[in-house]
């Protein structure tokens, strides 16, 4: 290797080497210091309550001895104010902070900030008496002014969730403080649903919101300040975490949980087993694993979210024929569908549309049962033969499986289905635009007030109701109409006495079961597992199948 010797120039190489060494050292040094700074900052002991983002918000120095801490899996549901949160989780992240006039327990609406709620005989005046001694989390007293302000403000700036009637200025004509602790709502028409809709609106503090002109962008710490049982002490949009602490001066029941945290986890079942989270929804086939373990308790939710089969009656005269839809009802084996596509996690859909677990479900309706022979007979009568193929529009994932199972079942009675699978959004938009023959639709919230039947099945209804999510598309636009039903829908809407309303809703279900505008296939329920020794106060609200969305799950109810 002689050429190396020839080319080596020792004079130059030593300074060069030194220079490189110094450069390296300098780089190393700078490289070391740069990452140190944020690291050092992170190591600063966090004072347990605040992050930068919430500087200046409510602080309380409470030492819980042996605090009850509950950790939950939670998606990023946005900033917890009534205006800035995302629709997912039904705004639960802000409901912990904000109270409403009524609250929801397992059975019904219960008095909350409202001590008393009187409806006048003509059904148009609601006199609400407020509880006294309610304090905002910054220490100010909550007054009747705050309630009036909240409703007026909501009419100007609708929050993420608001009932149609509360928002409509032509319906809710006046909101007035009639005494120190009394508000009077006056509505244009008597309404049986106003009570529930207005009752769950969050009350916001006037002294914070009165000058806010863009509530949707208002995400200062004080925007997440209410008079509810929990104070938001940490929210990080980047990390998807929320932390709440019990509010010491809360007017209501004691908090059974002192600290509530929501964290993202990758696999809920594993996180529950390792104790990372305290409550988890588990797949039906995993339920036995927890049922056999004495450490855990497994509970099932009411069955609400479900699938239904919808027929485009404008498209086909055949679909408009009641008997054709009934033939489908006879031909579909709901139990088999559940066994295959929902495992143990669903209950058969009711022909009267309102699901079995709805509090106003009428068991005395016409039940069809699985009867393929009868279906075949009806179809023959109608002249449907095997050469006719119907297009079945389905979404993705399990819906394809439901479609396949349906295809198999209907082949037995000689109906050929051609499955067209699209992603959920395309399916919804096609269903909404009426570009389908038969569609499988997924819908949540079947447990809500029965008035949703009116929104969905009344003719001449607002086609855009339901936000275009295919949950309310079968109005006049889809071709279904029944005068008799329309009449009952209006009648129940105007009845303010819940018992009388319930009777009408029962009648509506009977009629729906006869006319079968749509075929509910099944309503799914959830399995929940938790460690009762650690915390066992979980409940379900009567209209909603998610335990952690119930505020009462965290409060001491004794």
């Amino acid at each position, binding site marked *: 290797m002689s050429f190396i010797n020839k080319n080596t120039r020792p004079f130059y190489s030593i300074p060069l080497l030194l220079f490189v060494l110094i450069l390296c050292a300098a780089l190393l040094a700078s490289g070391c210091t740069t990452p140190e700074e944020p690291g050092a900052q992170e190591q600063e002991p966090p004072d347990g309550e605040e992050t930068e983002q919430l500087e200046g918000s409510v602080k309380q120095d409470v030492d819980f001895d042996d605090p009850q801490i509950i950790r939950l899996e939670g998606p990023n549901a946005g900033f917890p104010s009534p205006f800035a949160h995302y629709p997912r989780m039904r705004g639960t992240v802000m409901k912990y902070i904000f109270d409403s006039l009524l609250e929801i327990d397992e059975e019904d609406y219960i008095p909350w900030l409202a001590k008393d709620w009187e409806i006048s005989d003509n059904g148009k005046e609601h006199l609400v008496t407020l509880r006294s001694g309610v304090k905002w989390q910054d220490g100010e007293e909550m007054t009747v002014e705050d309630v009036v302000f909240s409703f007026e403000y909501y009419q100007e700036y609708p929050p993420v969730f608001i009932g149609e009637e509360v928002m409509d200025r032509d319906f809710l004509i006046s909101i007035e403080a009639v005494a120190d602790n009394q508000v009077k709502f006056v509505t244009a028409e008597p309404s049986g649903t106003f009570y529930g809709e207005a009752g769950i609106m969050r009350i916001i503090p006037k002294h914070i919101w009165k000058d806010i002109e863009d509530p949707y962008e208002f995400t200062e710490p004080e925007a997440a300040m209410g008079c509810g049982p929990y104070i938001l002490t940490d929210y990080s949009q980047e990390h998807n975490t929320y932390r709440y602490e019990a509010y010491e001066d809360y007017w209501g029941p004691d908090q059974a949980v002192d600290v509530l945290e929501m964290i993202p986890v990758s696999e809920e*079942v594993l996180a529950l087993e390792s104790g990372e989270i305290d409550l988890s929804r*588990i*797949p039906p*086939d*995993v339920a036995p*694993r927890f049922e056999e373990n004495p450490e855990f308790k497994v509970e099932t939710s009411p069955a609400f979210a479900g699938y239904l089969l919808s027929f485009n009656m404008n498209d086909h005269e055949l679909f408009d024929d009641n008997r054709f839809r009934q033939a489908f009802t006879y031909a579909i084996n709901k139990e088999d569908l559940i*066994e*295959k*596509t929902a*495992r143990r996690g669903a209950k058969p859909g009711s022909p009267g549309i309102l699901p079995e677990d709805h509090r106003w479900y009428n068991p005395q309706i016409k039940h069809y049962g699985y009867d393929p022979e009868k279906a075949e007979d009806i179809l023959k009568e109608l002249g449907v033969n095997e050469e006719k193929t119907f297009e079945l529009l389905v979404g*993705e*994932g*399990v819906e*394809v*499986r439901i*479609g*396949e*199972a349906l295809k*198999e079942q209907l*082949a037995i009675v000689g109906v050929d289905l051609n*499955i067209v*699978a699209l992603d959920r959004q395309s399916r919804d938009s096609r269903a909404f635009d009426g570009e389908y023959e038969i569609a499988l639709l997924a819908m949540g919230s079947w447990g809500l007030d029965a008035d949703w039947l009116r929104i969905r099945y009344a003719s001449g209804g607002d086609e855009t109701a339901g936000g275009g999510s295919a949950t309310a598309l079968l109005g006049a636009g889809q071709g279904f109409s029944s005068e008799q039903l329309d009449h009952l829908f209006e009648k129940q809407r105007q009845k303010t006495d819940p018992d009388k309303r319930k009777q009408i809703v029962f009648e509506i279900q009977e009629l729906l079961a006869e006319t079968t505008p749509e075929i509910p296939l099944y309503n799914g329920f959830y399995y929940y597992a938790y460690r009762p020794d650690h915390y066992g106060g979980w409940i379900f609200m009567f209209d909603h199948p998610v335990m952690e969305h119930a505020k009462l799950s965290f409060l001491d109810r004794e």
Partner: protein
Amino acid sequence: MQEALLKLKNYLLRIFILAGLLWSRLSPTGRAALLILMLLVLTALFAPLLAWHPPDVSSGPALTPPGDGHLMGTDDLGVDLWAMIVFGARVSIIVGLGTALLAGLGGSIAGIASAYKGGWMDRVIMRLVDIMIVLPDLPVMIVLAAFFGPSLSNIIIVLALFSWSRPARLIRAQTLSLKEQPYVKMAAHYGGGFFYLLFRHFLPELLPLLLVNMIRLAGMAIIAEASLAFLGLGDPTSRSWGLIINHAVNFSGIYFTPFWQWWLLYPWLFLTLLVTSLALLGRDLERVADPRLSS
């Protein structure tokens, strides 16, 4: 009649001798791969005879474990898994073969044309090839698959669109040297047109190389089809292996249940077998086709 028979006999004999020659030059892994491939092709061909349950409708309770009339158990709809796998082999093999043929032939014709004609055609084709090589295929395939809609032929076309560039480059390089051969020049001189030369001289000469390439393409296409199906972009009601895997993986909590032990394992196993044997055979054939590699 007798002449024809004799001719046929001769052909068969030649094929046997060629096959024997090939067999003798394969490594043990190559031989095993060839055997497995042949078995899988036979499975696909004779699927209706091999499966005693239908592959598209349920034939038993949901999620039955293997045994008891269901060789490999059933899926969530109660469809026999063995039936789905033997019929699914058809999908995989059709996709593999279809893509390989389409892309291999298309690519090699483009390569030969580019090399033989030269000039602007060469430039245009080669720039196209460059573009295709630079484009990340999976994302674009996802877009195309979503756009064209899920059907088997669409998937083959989309896959072929993305895999013709490699054979084209390879064949072009070989053709460049081939076209300088005296006999090709002679043929052209006597008036042999492009297509005459293509079918008479270029393709036969380049066939071994092309075959090796096509085997690779087939392996890639099968995986790509399975990935698209896995991502939910295949025909969701078909019964390809990728789709079986897709349904299994989407079953909530499958890893906490014993179901994955058949529902997920078997299609995965068959997919792996098919693709691995294609790869091993391709490697061996490459060595056989290119004497420089065997030393």
